[in-house]
């Protein structure tokens, strides 16, 4: 049984699973059950330095840039992985390849075209993020975003971060208005 975190909680991944080197970050949410435009949610990752910003555009891993130049973070694409647990999108992280300058990797989910479709996270049910050992397939930790959200259209689900030479995971659940653009602004990506 994998550990489940509450909002703000954290876990040492190195301690929970000493063999961990490659992880899969699965993010999921329920499909829309009513009529109308579906919820097109996009998972992204931001590779951040100690000041909480990216070094450049190549540190932003999303649907139009699926892999970081160093190969440490890879988005598996818009397709469902279909690995039983119901991840809607997932990213793979090779912890051994993460550059030393990167202190933190934030995993975000944003609602595509949220404004035009009048959608927000208050309408998205059963959102979660989970960390899986990509070698063994074992789920290490999971965060169900049971906290209520409403008008947010962008959300940091969780983050991996370095702490005393180990990797930890924090359940963040921090929402923003303004969709992916707001998220990019937050992390220092210039949108053209």
């Amino acid at each position, binding site marked *: 049984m994998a550990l489940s975190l509450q909002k703000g909680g954290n876990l040492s991944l190195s301690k929970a699973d000493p063999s961990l080197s490659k992880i899969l970050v699965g993010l999921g949410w329920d499909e829309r059950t009513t*009529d109308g435009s579906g919820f097109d949610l996009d998972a992204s990752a931001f590779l951040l330095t100690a000041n909480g910003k990216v070094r450049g555009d190549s540190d932003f891993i999303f649907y139009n840039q699926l892999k970081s130049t160093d190969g440490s973070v890879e988005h598996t694409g818009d397709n469902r992985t279909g690995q039983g647990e119901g991840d809607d999108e997932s990213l793979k992280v090779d912890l051994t390849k993460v550059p030393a300058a990167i202190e933190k990797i934030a995993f975000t989910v944003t609602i595509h075209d949220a404004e035009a479709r009048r959608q927000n996270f208050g*309408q998205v049910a059963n959102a979660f993020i989970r960390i899986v050992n990509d070698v063994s397939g074992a789920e290490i930790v999971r965060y169900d975003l*049971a906290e209520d959200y409403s008008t947010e259209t962008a959300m940091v689900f969780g983050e991996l971060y370095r702490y005393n030479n180990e990797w930890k995971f924090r359940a963040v659940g921090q929402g923003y208005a303004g969709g992916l653009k707001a998220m990019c602004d937050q992390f220092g990506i210039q949108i053209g």
Partner: protein
Amino acid sequence: MSVTQLVAGANCPVPREKLSVEVLLSPTQVSGAEVDISAFALTASSKVRGDDDMVFYGQPRPGNGSVALLANSAGRAEFSVDLPNLLASTEKVAFTATIHENRANFGAFSSLQVTVKNAAGQAILQASLPSSGMVESALILGELYLRQGQWKFRAVGQGFAGGLKPLAEHFGVEISDPAPTAAPPAPPPPSPAKKPISLSKVTLDKTKPRVSLEKKTEGFGEIRINLNWNRGQAPAAKSGGLLGGLFGGGNKGVDLDVGCLYEQRDGTISAIQALGNRFGSLRSDPFIELKGDDRTGAISEGEWLHINGQQWHTFKRILVYAFIYEGAPNWAQTDGIVTIYVPNEAPVEIRLTEGGNSLGMCAVVLLENNNGALQVNREVRYFHGHQDMDQAYRWGLNWRAGSK
């Protein structure tokens, strides 16, 4: 107390007490789009447990009455939700609006508004759901739900283009296809099995002014006739509370009374109405009873006239009327509606429209005993008062002015 404004998707906590939930459509009426407002009591899996979890015109107060439809007129509905007395497994109560028979969609309205009031009658939150451009004809307006021990309300504003059926199925309600109300095949067996819940409703209008219910050997059970109406839109009076009490009297609503003329097979003619204290009796002759007189205004189910259907054979005809006891005749704003509930039959609904504003009396519906069958005729004819209505229907009573 400030009123929290919610957009679709937003939520806020509510106190665990007896709340009232009011739904208002804007505009209140759109031609060709008759809106039904309902509530569904749901378990943690967002499904109903059974028919009693559905609160709508067909059963305004099912189960233990913890969720009840108190008022229902064109463009407005009010529910009471007694949170402490909900069944223990109820974790959500969803409020919905559906367009009858899927004849239009909510794009025809400009907005739908939900107001939640606390036990003291103060508005605590308000959700405005813009509906222009919507193609849905069934909407989940909002929901009260339990989250980690705290009751909350969420504005939803999502729904289905396919109307009530997909909405009901969304909540796990099994519904029968629209019942053929015109000609039931045969008299039902003496102890009929429980029918699946029927969502059909018969609306009598100019195009369909009559419906006939087949003769039943065991009679019709208790026939309940409800008159409800819109009590005026004065905000102070509606919000209740101290200010409502102090200033609510300034804008007087309309007091409508329901009554009936009846003619028995033995030739007896008389009337049942509050005026003159002729309340009748359900258990003994004349087997018609007026259930009190509501003049409170704010929260109300309107007025009820009950007819003992076991005694239907004793009646020749009954003319149900509504008259304005207090206030100026303004039938267009009064939005009067008469609903006839016969056990195991779809409710029959008649709207009081097209009224002349100088006429205070409306003959709404004529119930006729047609060889044992119950024939329901929409009348909606307006008169100055009892006298000229009586004459028009050749009843033959003597009328003089009275007061209650």
